[in-house]
């Protein structure tokens, strides 16, 4: 049923717009707390070593130094944290596991003193042989990154395997043996860095039983839970405030810098600000590098019959969100395709490198890239059009691809054909150019637990209290729209209060494209509770039945035409100048949310690329992106999410890779780590599929991650069509493409000779 929507679906200007264009928007890095000292972190220069001794006495004696924190200060707390596996100490204890790991921290009256004090801390290391990549980590007799089993480690963890996920169905080995055609390919995906422009920053105060942190965190309530557990506090004693966040993309998921900042503030006895540099943020978290081996069997009709996938994800020195990323990867490598016999194993592997965690569409870009490039290779080998080959195998709407999974809620084939048309698929391309397509689905949404409070004030304006983090995705604007729609108020009369565990109620997290959908429902429910009270208040004031009232633009009308403004109704109810109506909304698991995932986030992409044969340089001339969003609550914001995701995808497709040598990160800075720039922008077209198929308010689905997935495979396959060479390792740097071209030419020469 099509609802008559007044606010949802409109290009409402962002609520944070004025502040953000005038420089008044405050981020954690902008905060000043009275009495605040400045923190600095001493980091390990080596990838693996035993810490023999730390002498901080010279630093402690420096004028202006307030505190020096080392592992010796952690004896009365639980210093370890981590999602699932609690393996990461807030500061290295006895051993360092990657170059850049915090070893000590200083709080001083000014940043320069803190920095200088670091140089006066002497650490004696006994270097140990590190394991620096997947091969080294998986080799027999490899040193173990974690010699002792960390708390929460799953039973299958062994050696450097931190986590193992498996998805299985049918008898894939037998099916492969019986398949008409079998294919095996290996794909390699690099370590990439989020480069959220605001590096991690925390201001922590812990000079009494109460702990307050202002932090650039995506998940304030999960941070709160970790801090409470680690420092032995009750949840009510821990306050996590999240100002505007200067980009997240997963880099600020879960707990990062907060425990260190709290420990330092506790030692210092005063608030401490710890704001990382970009170079340090590079040493804090990254995306999992991956190696994916795919064996796929196809029958005579070009239908997938079996797939055996093995994915290794380099999770670095600590698990962080690696287990969840790995579980996601195990599923995503299967793509949106129907396949009767599958087995997918994914392993998170410890190495002595920067820990890897969440990054936009966790586990998906790595595996969807592998899956989709292989689909093209198979089509090519079978002489089939890649669109037709995919269409033959894509799951249909309503079809569950795996047992116990939510049936597909989108028309994958229709979207594929739409992006194909958008980039002129089937029409001749210019010389040295080629086109490619890809489709990716991800199981989005994380755990559906959220709550919201909505307050209708005595002047008829309303505030929404909820704890989604405004990372730039526009969540406050979108939730204000949902609230305005539900309350029948102009959106200008609705404000959204910034996340603060002290005043905004529980939300599990901001990630996995969940906020619009899950929190949107909580907000809508809270509005309905307000509206019911408002109806009663107005009914009493107007002397009409509550059910007969009509709500519009902040006024309530009785059947006889008499009206009352919301504010007047509120004041009449309380009989005074003030008062407010309060509504609550909860979302919890079960019910509509089963079976998982909450919804399917689907993204399609089509690319046209040109390649310079001599240099190997790839230029993406056109890119068409399409996302399945249910309904775009705010179309320009939805497009903006897609454009941003697509361009970010171009980064890991063309340039981005963290480079290690001898255990040292070589390019942890913006001079040497290249992200997409303004002049990399192709002719970019984004489309939104809106068929109200989502579980959220008005049929909305989450979005913002799906568009990153198809970029690499679409560009890679376009490149293949432009020059005949398939590159199975990212990024597609000029040199890598040039080498592939040279290899291809050499093979041609051999075969020609």
């Amino acid at each position, binding site marked *: 049923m099509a609802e008559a929507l007044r606010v949802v679906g409109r290009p409402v200007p962002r609520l944070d717009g004025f502040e953000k264009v005038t420089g008044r928007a405050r981020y954690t890095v902008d905060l000043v707390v009275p009495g605040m000292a400045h923190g600095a972190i001493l980091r390990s220069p080596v990838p693996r070593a035993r810490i023999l001794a730390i002498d901080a006495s010279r630093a402690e004696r420096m004028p202006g130094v307030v505190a020096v924190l080392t592992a010796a200060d952690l004896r009365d707390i639980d210093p370890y944290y981590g999602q699932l596996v609690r393996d990461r100490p807030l500061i290295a204890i006895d051993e360092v596991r990657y170059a850049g790991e915090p070893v000590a921290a200083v709080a001083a009256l000014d*940043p*320069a003193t803190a*920095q*200088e004090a670091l140089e006066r801390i002497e650490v004696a290391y006994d270097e140990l042989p590190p394991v620096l990549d997947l091969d080294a980590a998986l080799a027999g007799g490899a040193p173990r990154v974690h010699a002792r089993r960390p708390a929460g480690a799953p039973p299958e963890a062994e050696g450097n395997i931190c986590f193992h996920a498996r998805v299985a169905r049918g008898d894939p080995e037998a099916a492969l043996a019986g398949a008409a055609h079998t294919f095996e390919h290996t794909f390699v995906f690099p370590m990439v860095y989020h480069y959220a422009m605001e590096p991690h920053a925390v201001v922590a105060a812990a000079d009494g039983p109460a702990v307050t942190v202002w932090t650039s965190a995506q998940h304030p309530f999960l941070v709160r839970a970790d801090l409470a557990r680690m420092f032995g506090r009750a949840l009510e004693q821990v306050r996590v405030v999240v100002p505007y966040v200067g980009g997240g993309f997963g880099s600020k998921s879960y707990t990062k810098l907060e425990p260190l900042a709290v420990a330092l503030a506790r030692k210092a006895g005063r608030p401490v600000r710890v704001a990382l540099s970009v170079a340090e943020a590079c040493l804090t978290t990254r995306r999992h590098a991956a190696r994916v081996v795919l064996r796929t069997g196809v029958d005579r009709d070009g239908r997938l019959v079996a797939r055996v996938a093995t994915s290794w994800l380099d999770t670095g020195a600590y698990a962080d969100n690696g287990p969840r990323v790995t579980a996601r990867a195990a599923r995503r490598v299967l793509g949106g395709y129907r396949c009767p016999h599958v087995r997918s194993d994914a392993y998170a592997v410890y190495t002595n490198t920067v820990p890897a965690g969440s990054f936009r569409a966790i586990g998906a870009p790595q595996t969807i890239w592998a899956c989709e490039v292989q689909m093209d290779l198979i089509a090519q080998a079978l002489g089939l059009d890649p669109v037709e080959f995919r269409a033959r195998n894509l799951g249909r709407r309503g079809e569950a691809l795996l047992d116990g999974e939510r049936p597909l809620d989108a028309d994958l084939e229709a979207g594929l054909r739409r992006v194909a048309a958008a980039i002129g698929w089937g029409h001749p391309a210019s010389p040295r150019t080629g086109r490619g397509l890809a489709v990716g689905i991800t199981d989005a949404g994380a755990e559906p637990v959220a709550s919201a409070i909505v307050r209708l004030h005595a002047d008829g304006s309303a505030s929404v209290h909820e704890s989604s983090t405004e990372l730039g995705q526009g969540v406050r604007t979108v939730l204000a729209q949902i609230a305005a729609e539900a309350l029948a108020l102009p959106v200008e009369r609705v404000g959204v209060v910034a996340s603060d565990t002290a005043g905004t109620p529980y939300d599990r997290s901001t990630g996995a494209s969940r906020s619009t959908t899950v929190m949107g429902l909580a907000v809508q429910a809270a509005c309905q509770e307000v509206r019911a009270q408002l109806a009663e208040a107005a009914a009493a004031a107007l002397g009409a039945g509550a059910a007969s009232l009509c709500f519009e633009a902040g006024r309530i009308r009785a059947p006889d035409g008499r009206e009352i403004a919301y504010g007047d109704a509120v004041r009449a109810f309380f009989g005074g100048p003030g008062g407010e109506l309060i509504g609550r909304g909860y979302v919890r698991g079960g019910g509509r949310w089963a079976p998982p995932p909450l919804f399917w986030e689907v993204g399609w992409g089509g690319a046209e690329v040109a390649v310079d044969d*001599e*240099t190997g*340089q790839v230029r993406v001339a056109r890119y068409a992106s399409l996302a399945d969003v249910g309904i775009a609550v705010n179309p320009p914001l939805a497009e903006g999410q897609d454009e941003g995701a697509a361009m970010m995808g171009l980064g890991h497709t*063309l*340039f981005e890779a963290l*480079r290690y040598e001898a255990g040292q990160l*070589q*390019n942890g800075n*913006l*001079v*040497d780590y*290249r992200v997409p720039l303004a002049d990399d922008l192709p002719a970019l077209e984004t489309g939104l599929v809106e068929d109200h198929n989502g579980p959220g308010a008005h049929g909305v689905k989450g979005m913002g991650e799906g568009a990153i997935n198809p970029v690499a495979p679409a560009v890679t396959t376009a490149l293949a069509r432009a020059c005949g060479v398939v590159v199975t390792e990212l990024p597609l*740097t*000029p*040199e890598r493409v*040039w*080498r592939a071209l040279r290899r291809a030419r050499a093979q041609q020469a051999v075969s020609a000779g």
Partner: protein
Amino acid sequence: MLRPFEIHQPESVEAASALVGRYGDDAAFYAGGTELLLVMKEGLVRYRHLVDLKTIPALGALDYDAASGLLRIGGTVTHRALERHPTVRERFPIVAEVERLVANVRVRNVGTIGGNLCFAEPHADPGTLFLTFDAEVELVGTRGARTVPIGAFFTGAYETARQPDEVLTAVRLREGGPQTRWAYMKFGIHERPTLGVAVALTLDAERRGIEDVRIAVGCVGPVPARVPAAEALLRGAPLAEADGPLERAAQVAAEGADAVDDLHGSAEYKVEMVKVFMRRAFRAAAARFQ
């Protein structure tokens, strides 16, 4: 994080030179600071005294002498000033063109030509271009003034012929004649270029034969350098039949390139790219005669 230092504001080159002479290793000249401050922030170098050269008015001059065709660029002239200066744009268009592509507009607004040359960061553009002008660098120190050909100025990565107390007061370029065209090509995907190739091509009066050619290659190795052997292969060749010599010259240039493996790519790749871009730059210069 910059460590504490003092800043000195001399009013003459002599005073500046004397200050650095006095403080020795504790002092450095400070011009644009765009490179210096970065390495100071990282703690890679530490100076307790910075001697500001921009307080010396003479160093900011940009003079063109029409009679001699000589452009004298003061050491503290910014990239942006060069990019936008009407005389430079008219008489030395290649300089403005190259400057436009240096880093980003903010760096160009602050960074100086003297600072750029003296810092001798290998992945820089102006030095490579100036090699094809046979530019000369004026140095003034406590022991007097001297002029160094730019070819002798760069001695290694971050190393030059300048003595610690010597101020680069100016770089001098001579205008090309009506028969000379320049092209500069840079390549790479990172903030700093992977490679830069400059070509100055002088044709004979009929514009049929290559009277002279000067080619410089930068970024791939520690210092930008001319490739005389390659130039020699081209010199005197008819333009219409330059493909063969160009190919050989590119090969020679590539063989002579002192390329290193780094984040920008392997030496092998860079050597190949020297060939590609020498060809392209030469053709671009030639195309400018049309």
